[in-house]
């Protein structure tokens, strides 16, 4: 089975190359197909010049924020009124206010942290027009912002137009891919219907209600757009979201496909494919290490079984047996490398050290990462690495031929601080107060990990749940909602500001005295920056959570 799992990494890596080329072609002005041009023209006629003119990075960000606020307001309205809106065959009732805030924040930020169960709480209209719509446009926002960053780093003062980019990303890139994947999933047995829940009489004579709906459409974009918000509460462990071993492999590959392709898109727009190769290699190495570690650690039995005759088996607790323990570990690694957050096994039941793998992935949040934003996150690590190591060659540090100085470093450090502030600050607050401590289902280190994971997932815009947490409370809904919003927009705004400030500087010609950013040595520097900064910021909580749990179990 291991070779097949390895294939789930290799296939998307191979596909990412042509897809990256297509994405760069589609998102760059003038590079679209006839279908694309026509749609753009229609859009321009309706939207007028205000929506389609060239923007500098500030205007671009303003448009991005305005659009996201509008989407937030729209979906809040849809969710709040779902009981009186159409497409509600099962008559779903109203939602609680803090849950509406949390859910709207969660889907507009591409997080898809779910404090509800879709099949129980959401109408078809909420699922499709509210949540699935956001799954498209939030992913498209990420791709658009990456395109803007790449254009600025390529030295352009105009970084494109946000609305045009959003349109291209949503309709030309995401929509066709999602359509294709949905068809494959339907063929694999995922339901796609507007009929209400099916009611069946079992052999024993009991009545069983089976929730269904337009599942395939939502699962496709949830996997492709690093969204992760499932149609059903149990996400891809549910047999209607992920029926078989084969749909599991296809869904697994879809998690990393676009994040991988985004690296090549970045390379093509900046015109620095060698740099993109280095970035891709760094991310790939981290991904392989994560996947291998999770796979290996999960092949050990759960601590409760240690010393028993059944010990030889891998940890099967919380796994779907149709996928197996290995597939669960691999998915856990992939879904937290990218900021996807869908699951096909129970993360709460992972061995403690395996549980560290998803956590570490979300702490660094740059292993391909969320569509578009993964590279934007890595950009901060690159700038810090360039600054410190660049000095060691005896020159003012430069990136892409532009000097990195006080202004850029101030923004970079601010961006770096957001992530630990939200995770450590949130965890500390909730661990020390009943708001969090009273909601955990396990005591001690494991319970701590449950709180830590929830804040980590929200701050990484990941959305996966460790579970084992009564998280649908007003305190959790508001706290994670705020964390998701801050963790989404600040790490887009600051890097774009840095890139804009770099773009306004005069380019310095590269000489043999310049620190080169397209070499394996620089790859090592990026790798070092990511691992070092990640470790220094999160080592104490890693020790107190998963490591303490593992060591305590081992010492018994």
């Amino acid at each position, binding site marked *: 089975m291991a070779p097949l799992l390895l294939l789930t990494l290799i296939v998307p890596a191979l596909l990412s190359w042509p897809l990256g080329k297509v994405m760069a072609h589609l998102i760059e002005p003038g590079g679209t197909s006839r279908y694309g041009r026509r749609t753009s023209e229609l859009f321009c006629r309706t939207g007028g010049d205000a929506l389609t003119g060239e923007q500098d990075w500030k205007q671009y960000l303003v448009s991005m924020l305005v659009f996201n606020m509008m989407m937030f307001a729209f979906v809040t309205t849809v969710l709040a009124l779902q009981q009186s809106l159409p497409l509600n065959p099962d008559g779903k009732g109203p939602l609680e206010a803090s849950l509406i805030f949390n859910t709207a924040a969660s889907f507009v930020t591409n997080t898809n942290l779910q404090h509800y169960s879709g099949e129980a709480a959401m109408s078809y209209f909420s699922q499709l027009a509210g949540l699935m719509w956001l799954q498209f446009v939030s992913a498209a926002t990420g791709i658009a912002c990456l395109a803007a960053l790449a254009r600025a780093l390529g030295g352009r003062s105009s970084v494109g137009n946000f609305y045009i980019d959003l349109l291209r990303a949503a309709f030309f890139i995401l929509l066709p891919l999602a359509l294709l994947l949905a068809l494959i999933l339907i063929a694999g047995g995922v339901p796609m219907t507007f009929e209400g829940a099916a009611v069946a009489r079992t052999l024993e004579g009991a009545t069983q209600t089976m929730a269904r709906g337009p599942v395939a459409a939502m699962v496709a974009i949830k996997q492709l757009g690093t969204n992760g918000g499932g149609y059903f509460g149990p996400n891809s462990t549910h047999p209607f979201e992920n029926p078989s071993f084969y749909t599991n492999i296809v869904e697994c590959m879809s998690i990393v496909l676009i994040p991988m392709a985004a690296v090549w898109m970045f390379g093509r727009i900046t015109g620095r494919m060698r740099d993109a190769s280095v970035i891709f290699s760094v991310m790939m190495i981290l991904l392989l290490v994560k996947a291998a570690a999770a796979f290996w650690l999960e092949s050990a039995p759960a601590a409760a079984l240690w010393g028993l005759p059944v010990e030889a088996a891998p940890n099967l607790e919380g796994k779907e047996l149709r996928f197996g323990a290995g597939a669960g570990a691999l998915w856990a690694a992939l879904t937290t490398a990218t900021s996807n957050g869908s699951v096909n096994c129970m993360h709460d039941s992972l061995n403690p050290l395996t549980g560290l793998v998803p956590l570490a992935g979300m702490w660094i949040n740059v292993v391909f990462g969320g569509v578009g934003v993964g590279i934007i996150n890595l950009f901060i690590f690159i700038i810090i690495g360039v600054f410190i190591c660049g000095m060691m060659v*005896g020159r*003012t540090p430069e990136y892409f031929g532009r000097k990195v100085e006080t202004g850029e470093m101030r923004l970079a*450090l601010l961006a770096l601080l957001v992530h*630990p502030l939200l995770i450590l600050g949130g965890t500390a607050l909730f661990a020390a107060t009943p708001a969090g401590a009273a909601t955990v289902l396990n005591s001690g280190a494991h319970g701590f990990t449950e709180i830590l994971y929830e804040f980590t997932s929200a701050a990484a815009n990941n959305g996966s749940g460790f579970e084992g947490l009564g998280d649908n409370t007003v305190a959790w809904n508001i706290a994670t909602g705020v964390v998701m919003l801050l963790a989404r927009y600040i790490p887009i705004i600051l890097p774009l500001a840095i890139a804009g400030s770099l773009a306004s500087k005069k380019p310095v010609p590269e000489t043999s005295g310049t620190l080169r950013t397209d070499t394996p040595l620089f790859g090592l520097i990026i790798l070092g920056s990511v691992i070092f900064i990640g470790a220094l910021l999160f080592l104490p*909580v890693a020790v*107190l959570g998963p490591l303490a749990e593992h060591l305590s179990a081992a010492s018994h």
Partner: protein
Amino acid sequence: MTNRTSLPDTCEQAKSGRRKAKTSSLFEKQLVTGALRRSAVMLDPRSMAKNPVMFVTEAGAVLTTLIAAGNAFTGKGNLTYTVAVALILWLTVLFSNFAEALAEARGKAQTDSLKRTRRNTVARKVTNGREESVNSDELQEGDRVVVLAGEIIPGDGEIVEGAAMVDESAITGESAPVVREAGGDRSGVVGGTRVISDRIVIRISVSAGNTFLDRMIALVEGAVRQKTPNELALTVTLAGLTLAFLLVTGSLWPIGKYFGMTLPVPTLVALLVCLIPTTIGALLAAIGLAGMDRALSANVLAKSGKAVELAGDIDTLLLDKTGTITIGNRQASDYFPLPGIGLDRLARIAMEASSGDQTPEGKSIVALAEKMLAVKPSLESEGKTVPFSAQSRMSGIDFPDGRSFRKGAPDTLIRYCEKQGGTVPATLQELVNEVARKGMTPIVVADGPEPLGVVALADILKPGIADRFSRLRAMGLRIVMVTGDNPLTAAAIARDAGVDDYIAEARPEDKLQYIRKEQEQGRLIAMMGDGTNDAPALAQADIGVAMNSGTQAAKEAGNMVDLDSDPTKLIEIIEIGKQLLMTRGALTTFSIANDIAKYFAIIPAMFVLAIPGLGVLNIMRLASPESAILSSLIFNAIIIPLLIPVAIRGVRYRPMGADTMLRKNLLIYGVGGVVAPFIGIKLIDMALALTGLV
């Protein structure tokens, strides 16, 4: 001490003082005691605030001291341990202050000798033709003063009348006197130097207290020191990292509550101080000061720290050929007469034409002619010499009988001959080209309108210069040779020396144009110059180094002055700039790399009581939790003085490509930075365990 008889002594003292400062060991007793005293004064939080890392450390020290006092008062808590933490924290701050104070003191030792030259003298001020005695510190810009042989020049200025031998050893350390004269490019004099011969009149160009020397002294002593751009960016970075670690340690206290632990605040402060980049934070100011100090040791006065730092970024070096690439002046090596012209005639006319040319080149033409001609000819004396000038580019002699001899650059001489109505044979141009192609400078000699032939001036490359250039090129520098030679000669010399480009037949405005062109492509340019007509180019260049012997205009235009007037100094300045940045990068990397080992020491120590399983993480097998924390903190403090030599002398620098240099530094300071504290902390822990205190 203003009487003249004591002057030679003080000069000697000043000189030996400077030499001593240059060679003194790092921790000279006098400097150290001064620095120690100053490091206590610098504990004032107002002066600490400019260094965020050390400010946080001091705040931690204050907090821990208060807790220790509280412990002593209530009798609760582990008093010995808290006092130990507080003491080490205070020591950390003091070490940091000491590093800065020592670097300052070393700068002061250098400037003290400079200051001695600045001390008051009596000046003979000339007003309306009358001399009056005034104190030198009362002199204003524009005043004229007379200086006689044996007297000290009272202030910076320019010679407006006369010429003199000047002993500049007090500021340059060079004992041979130099010639300074009115007009031309060697008219600048510096206050504090001594006139050995003759009488000169000087126009004071800077008011007392604002001289170049004053500004430099203030800069080195840190009085007016502003953070340089890179230093500022690094300070921001370090402040950001400090905030991040404040967050990490700050969150541990409430998290500890979840586990039912009350983490002792001194331990949290200890963890914080170990994690924040105290090493680089403590040494950052010293690195900058030491960079200025190194520049001064190289006898370079920089107008700002920024200029020294910028030197590391230089992409293109504009070097004058003469004195930098080739040895001193060209020597006449051969005569090439045109067909039909006798060698004797050519040599004789060339000699006559050069009689008015007092440059070494002119003299060498005369010397060669004297050697070649069997009979020593007597120069005709009634002729009127036409002196050489940069504009006319020729010299010669006119006789009352209408004969006129000329020698000079081929193109000007050919034009001259044609203007006089002579015909220039095609063979002359061939001859000129042939000489030029050999890398020699052709000088055409003419008798009235008739060209006679060519004198070849040979250049000798400085030994090892090609090798040096190839190393500079490995660092990514473009070297451009500036010469007055014709393009063919320039190309030949450029080839031999291995420079990237050359500006031939260069006039001052060509330099300016070249600099602008390079800057448009984003390159940073450094150049050296001395003349007034170099001033625009010096001002335009990113690093303009004026020679001390040069005019005041040149000195004002550039951002550095080289006291030695040594054209190769540019290379040294660039190396100082690069070393400055490298030292910062290396120590930052080292500082952050250290944190891994400290985590392994402190984290198990903090939590092992609540979570016994964490004992496995104590991979260094440190004796006890207290000893683990104290050992890390002691290592963190002691590494500061241990690295003072690296901060002040700079990391070892050899010219090499960026990649090689980075790999080497990453290995030493990155990997070394991870490994060293594991060893250091273990050793300190063993020593602590031996004392039995913890």
